[in-house]
Structures are given as structure tokens and as C-alpha cells.
């Protein structure tokens, strides 16, 4: 019972990092970015690239990696942002100037998924890669087993989520972003430059996704399809929490992560007792979907949703 809960928190913090990016883009650029999973994958591969270039600096504490990983993460966040801004300049800006509908932007992002996935597969190949060696878990009371890397994953997610929150809440730019999401025309009239806001939205969204992808790579492995399988949980987290709600993305991400792990293990136990042979872990992604139906039937605008209509 506690084992799946711990796994759920780890998964939930990775989903949250992605979900914040989805919710920022959905709120400020007004479309659901289907390419967010591909951005997540790209970030993981950039980290892999820099890890191989940087000299090995040994490992810190009892983690399986060291300072070179931290530098690689920062470089990866920057590189992912540059690539995403490039796509924004050549594609999304043209569409914005044309006042394209949000469905059109969503479809464009779906096209971008295949361009990015194909490029990643061509450069790094379709096979699985690992950042480092596999780590053994530390045993805690109550049968909990946690790898030291997993503390890093949760801590890094929490710190970045907190930094993003403080940035949005207190800095001038963050306030301008929130103003733009509330009312574009009013924000422009008050002297907020929309293009600057859009640029920063992409940078934050891409950086958090790059970190999320890297953390998933540390926990499991990296492969070209990893982001695609995270896409639906990220979207579900955003919709459960309410589009445009920062706290909603955090709570939604945690709910999805924990319930995926908990419900899978509970159902698996139940089926074992009933002697039904079903491999529940194969259906983990389905749980996110059943949740979305339930939430949308009960609260159509999500738990923290604020937008009417």
C-alpha cells in the first residue's frame, strides 16, 4: 500500500513538471500543446548529449550522478528552450498573427510531434538509453524501498515548482504573464508586450519539461516514445486541476501519479484474489482516462477551474 504511494509521488512530481508547462501554454497562448510530450523527450536527450560531452565529476552524496548531471540539466533546459523558441518563431508566431483558432494551433502541435520524434529517432536511434548505472534501493521501515536518486527527483521537482510559483507571483514579468492570461487586451493597454510574454511562457514551459524528461530518464530510461506516453497524464492533470490554474496543475499531477500507481496495484490484488489473469500495469495509462471522465462529469471546469463557459 505504501510502496505504490511512494512510486505515485515520484511519478506525480514528474507529471506535475510537464503539466505546469501545458497549463501555462494553454492559458497564455490559448491552445493545448500536443508537442509537449516531444519537448519532454527532447529535454531528456539533450541531457544525455551533454552528459557524454562533460567530464565525469564523480557522484555526489549517495546519488548515482554528480555535478556533471546538474550542469547537463541546466544546459538541457536552455537548449530545449532555444529549440522551442525556434519553432515558435517559424510556426506559431505566423499562426498567431493570422488569428488562427486554438484547434488549428493544437493540430499544428500534433504535426510538430512527428517532426520532433522523427528527428530524435534519427539522431539517437530508436533504442533505449541510460544515463548511468542502475542503483539499488535503501530499505526503510514498513517495507518502503526508495532509491537515493528518487529523493533527488522529488526535491528537484518541488524546488522548481516553488521557483516557478514565486516567479509568477512576485516578479514584474510573472505579474505581466498572469495579467495577460486574465485579459490580453487590458494587459496590452497597460503596456505589457505580448510577444515578450509569449517568449517567457515558452521558456518556462520548455525548461520544466526538459527537467521532467531528465528526471524520468534518471528514474527509468530514455527512449523516443517516452514523452508520448506522458502526454495524456499531463493533459489529464491540467484538466483535473483546471486549465490555467498553477496550483491545479500541481494537485492534478500528484492525483494522477498517485492514483495511477495505487489503483493499478489495488486492482491487481483484487484480480489475483478473484483468479482473473490481467496484467494491470499495462493499463496504467487507462486509469488517467477513467479519472478524467469522472472529474469532468462531476466538475466540468476541473477542481480549481476558474473560467466559465
Amino acid at each position, binding site marked *: 500500500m505504501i510502496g505504490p504511494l511512494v512510486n505515485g509521488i515520484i511519478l506525480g512530481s514528474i507529471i506535475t513538471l510537464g503539466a505546469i508547462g501545458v497549463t501555462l501554454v494553454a492559458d497564455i497562448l490559448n491552445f493545448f500543446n500536443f508537442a509537449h510530450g516531444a519537448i519532454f523527450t527532447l529535454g531528456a536527450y539533450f541531457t544525455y548529449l551533454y552528459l557524454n560531452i562533460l567530464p565525469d565529476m564523480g557522484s555526489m552524496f549517495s546519488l548515482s550522478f554528480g555535478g556533471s548531471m546538474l550542469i547537463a540539466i541546466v544546459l538541457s533546459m536552455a537548449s530545449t528552450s532555444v529549440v522551442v523558441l525556434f519553432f515558435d518563431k517559424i510556426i506559431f508566431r505566423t499562426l498567431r498573427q493570422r488569428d488562427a483558432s486554438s484547434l488549428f494551433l493544437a493540430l499544428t502541435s500534433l504535426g*510538430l510531434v512527428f517532426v520532433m520524434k522523427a528527428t530524435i529517432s534519427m539522431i539517437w536511434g530508436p533504442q533505449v538509453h541510460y544515463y548511468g548505472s542502475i542503483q539499488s534501493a535503501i530499505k526503510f521501515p514498513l517495507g518502503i524501498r526508495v532509491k537515493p536518486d528518487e529523493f533527488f527527483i522529488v526535491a528537484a521537482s518541488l524546488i522548481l515548482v516553488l521557483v516557478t510559483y514565486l516567479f509568477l507571483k512576485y516578479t514584474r514579468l510573472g505579474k505581466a504573464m498572469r495579467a495577460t492570461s486574465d485579459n490580453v487586451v487590458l494587459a496590452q493597454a497597460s503596456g505589457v508586450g505580448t510577444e515578450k510574454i509569449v517568449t517567457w511562457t515558452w521558456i518556462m514551459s520548455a525548461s520544466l519539461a526538459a527537467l521532467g524528461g531528465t528526471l524520468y530518464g534518471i528514474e527509468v530510461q530514455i527512449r523516443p516514445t517516452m514523452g508520448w506516453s506522458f502526454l495524456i497524464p499531463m*493533459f489529464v492533470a491540467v484538466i483535473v486541476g483546471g486549465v490555467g490554474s498553477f496550483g491545479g496543475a500541481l494537485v492534478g499531477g500528484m492525483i494522477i501519479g498517485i492514483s495511477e500507481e495505487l489503483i493499478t496495484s489495488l486492482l491487481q490484488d483484487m484480480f489475483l484474489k478473484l483468479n482473473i489473469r490481467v496484467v494491470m500495469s499495462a493499463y496504467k495509462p487507462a486509469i488517467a482516462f477513467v479519472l478524467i471522465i469522472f472529474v469532468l462529469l462531476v466538475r466540468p471546469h476541473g477542481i480549481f477551474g476558474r473560467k466559465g463557459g
Partner: protein
Amino acid sequence: MLSYIASYLVMASIYGIIALALNFQWGFSGLMNFGIGASYMLGAYSAALLSSAPTAEHLGGFGVPFPLDLVGAAIIPGFIAFLIGFPALKLKGGPFAIATLAIHEIIYLIVHNEMWLTNGVWGIRDISRPLYSQMPQQYDFFYLLIAGGMLIGFYFFFQKAVRSPWGRVIRGIKVDEDMALMSGKYAWSYKMQSFVLGSAIAGIAGGLFVHYTGFVSPTNFTPLMATFIVWLMVMVGGSGNNRGVLVGTFFVWGVWTGSEFLTDFFPGSMETRAGFMRMFLMGIILLIVIITRPQGIFGKEKIIPKYLRSE
């Protein structure tokens, strides 16, 4: 060479039927269905299981003969679309697209994992190919008559449907749902009808596909091959224009099959990467179309009633 062209035309016709179905849902009814591939897959597996001989490997042994199992290939995806429609059609726009994409992933997971039902990744072999023993040499040409005939039939069906009073309501709901409601048209019901009809017809295309290849496995229904390529066909041709969609289908499928020749030029060690080159090409085509010609080659067709035409 001739039989190569015939086989290209058969597959293009099958995709043409799905593209027409998607165009009806998206171009005319405004439903952003990212799960159209799920209906195609359900139709393919329904036809395969209904017509297969008894086997220990998976469900089967119903022995429904060829043209009749296509009815099953329409009813099963149609009915599942009906069930999905209840929660999904409460959503609009982006969330609807996400929900349909999620359904596609779940159906794919079930087909991929449940060995007793679909034989999982091994797929279903020896699906009957109608009249194959009579003409193994000219089979592509014979099947082209079936698939091409169905495509032409569905083209005229959809052309009539969108011009009928019923189709007018559907198109009206896309433009302004509240206006349709005010005119006493229950929008939700019409959207459901469009969703179910499109899914059922995509299912028939799936049935045609399995009887042509004689084999089906989950790899035929990746997000690229089952959903995205169909969207590309609709977007290239012009959403809301059935003739444009047909042209878009033959163009996109031409590029896809043509790019197979390109990959032959790559050395053997690069072969797996060359496959991704084709995926890249498909994505780039969509981006180029969206940036340079967002309305597609033909654009949305203006449908003007006969008595309003000026000449």
C-alpha cells in the same frame, strides 16, 4: 509495375474512406477527433475476428462471410463511439481531442495486450481474401474494384448527406451551436450522430483493409499510420471539401509510398533511420500546408442551394 500502381490505389481508396469519414466529423461537424484511428482499428479487428476460422489462439470462429462482416465492422466501432460519445461529447475543442486521443491509446493497449481476444502483438493471420484463389495474379486489380467502388459510393453518400436538410443542421451547429439550439435543433444529438456515423464508416475501411492484406497486427495502427496520416490527408485537401479530401488522400498516400523508394537509397545500416525520415516528411508536409495554405489545396467548399445559384 501495374500491379504496384493497383496496390497503391487500393490502399489510397481505403484511406480515402477514412479521410471522408474524418472530414465529415471535422470539416463539416467541427468534431476534432484524434481517435479516428481507433475506429479504423476496431473495424479491422471486428472484420478479422468475425470472418476467421475457429482457432485456439484468439477469439474467433464466427465464420461470417466477406461482405456481411463489413456490417459488423461498422456496427462495433459505431456502437463503441456511441458509448464514448456520452462523456466525450460533453467536451468541446481541445479537451474533446484529448479525450478521443486517450480512447485511441486505451483501445490500442487492449488490442496489444489481450492475447485471448486479438492474439496481441502476433496479430491475426490467414484472414480470408475474397475470391483470391480464382485470381492470385490479378488480385490487386480485382480488389481495386471493391475498394474503389466503395470509395466512390461513400463520396456520393457524403456529398448527398451534407447537402440534405440533416446535413444543413450539422453544418449549422459547427458554425454556431447556440443558434442551432435556438432554432430548436438539439445540437448534442446531431453531434452524436455525426460521431457515430464517421466512426462506423472508418470501421468499414478497417474491414476492407484486413480482407486485402489477409493479416492484421497492432503495428498497422500506430498514431502515425492510423490517425495522423488521415488528418494530413484532410488538411492537405482542405477540410470541409470532400473532393479536396480525395485529392489530398491520393497525394499524401503517393508521397508516403513514394518515400519508400527513397529509403532504398540508404545503406542497410541506415535503414531503421530512413523509416523515421518518412515520419519526418509527413510532419513537415502538415507544417508547410498550415503555414503556406491553411485552407488546404482546395479550401472549404461553398455549398449553395440550387435555387440560390445565380445562373
